[in-house]
């Protein structure tokens, strides 16, 4: 099964894999080989790609996933290996997201999304460091 991760800037990843765990908007979904065609909304969280013995882990932030013809394609705004996440930076991001003042529903949605994204970043950064 091919796994392709694309950001607006470049194709981050284009590899063979056995199993992929993808953070959807409401929880995780696991995709194995020859999965049925699927289109889903991504949330913020950890993308795990397993290929035989290797397990690689990325932080992805919003976007879509499309599974078709044994290829998993992730379109996402950001995809970084979790080892490159910075705890201090993501904590600062979380604090600023929490303080944001909102006036209408759309802004509230945005605020909640930002908080959620920052929380997952902090969690994954800790995980990468083994805390």
């Amino acid at each position, binding site marked *: 099964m091919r796994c392709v991760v694309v950001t607006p800037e470049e194709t981050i990843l284009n590899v063979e894999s056995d199993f992929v765990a993808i953070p959807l908007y409401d929880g995780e979904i696991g995709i194995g080989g020859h999965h049925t065609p699927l289109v889903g909304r991504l949330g913020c969280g950890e993308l795990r790609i397993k290929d035989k013995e290797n397990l690689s882990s990325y932080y992805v932030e919003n976007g879509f996933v499309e599974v078709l013809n044994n290829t998993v394609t992730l379109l996402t*705004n950001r995809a970084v290996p979790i080892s490159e996440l910075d705890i201090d930076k993501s904590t600062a991001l979380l604090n600023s997201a929490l303080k944001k003042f909102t006036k209408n529903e759309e802004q509230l949605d945005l605020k909640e999304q930002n908080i959620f994204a920052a929380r997952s970043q902090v969690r994954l950064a800790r995980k990468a460091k083994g805390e």
Partner: protein
Amino acid sequence: MAKARTLDRRRKSIRNTRKITRTMELVATAQFRRAMDRAVAASSYTKRIVSLVKDLSHAGVSVTHPLLEQRAEIKNVALLVLTANRGMCGGYNANMIRMSMTRWHELQQEFGDSATLEISGKRGISAFRFRGIEPDLFYTHFEDKPTFDEVNELASRYIEEYYDEKIDRLEIIYTKFISMSKQEAVHETLLPMTELVTEEDVLDYSPSNGIVDEKEKKSESELRKEAMIRAAQAKLDKAGVAVVREGGEIPFDFYPSAQSVMEEVVPNAFRVKLFKSFLDAGVNEQISRMVAMKAATENADQMISSLNTAYNRARQGQITNEIIEVTSGFQALGG
């Protein structure tokens, strides 16, 4: 002697200018390749979004989204102009400044103070300041390689302001990449979005340029493997495990629903469009500079060769003069 010497001095100074323009041409070529590689790498995202939208529309989804709705009353308009930080690129900046100046005057007449002007690039900022117009916001940090994060920040602010009704319309003036030999200053409305991404948005960098996204390239063994997988898939299909329905329509599972996915596509399409404008601007700046500097170098070559002729002629004339002087002096002495 005086004439030949001035000609020589001129020739020297033009040679120096030629060296500079030649170097700038080489630098622009290198930067153009980099900018182009980035644009090509970025186009694969747009390509995939387009195919996703197509799949969604096959599933019979219609879109309604605040970013797509035309507002009944338009009070606040923002104009964003993308120029370069540096000059020496032919008519690149001038074209856009001319266009944006006209548009800005129109907007001012129509909306007065509620029109806001945003300029990226030192050239545009100073051109507007020269005419006594101070931009409301300006950016100089978008060099020839804008990152998505930088542009995304801008895009998020626009989306926020649009929800807030601080802006009702967002217009952009930039140079669009049409082909290697054709770029055009264009004026587009980004918000509200008139349409979602279309195939037109996929950058058409002709393959004859030999520009291919490195990561999208597949090795031969990978291709072979894929062919095998496809063959296996075909067998599965025959065995009745149909993946593709008749009529080519694919039965997707949607999480949570096609409608919801579409709603997420809309703001993303806007972000990507804005990012693409910046990338286009970067590529085109380098192309213009390359062309302008190439022309300048050729001009210098021409001038040097015509000065060479003039200098040689002057030198020859001088020598002839001197010989005449010597011989006539000799004859006067009664030789």
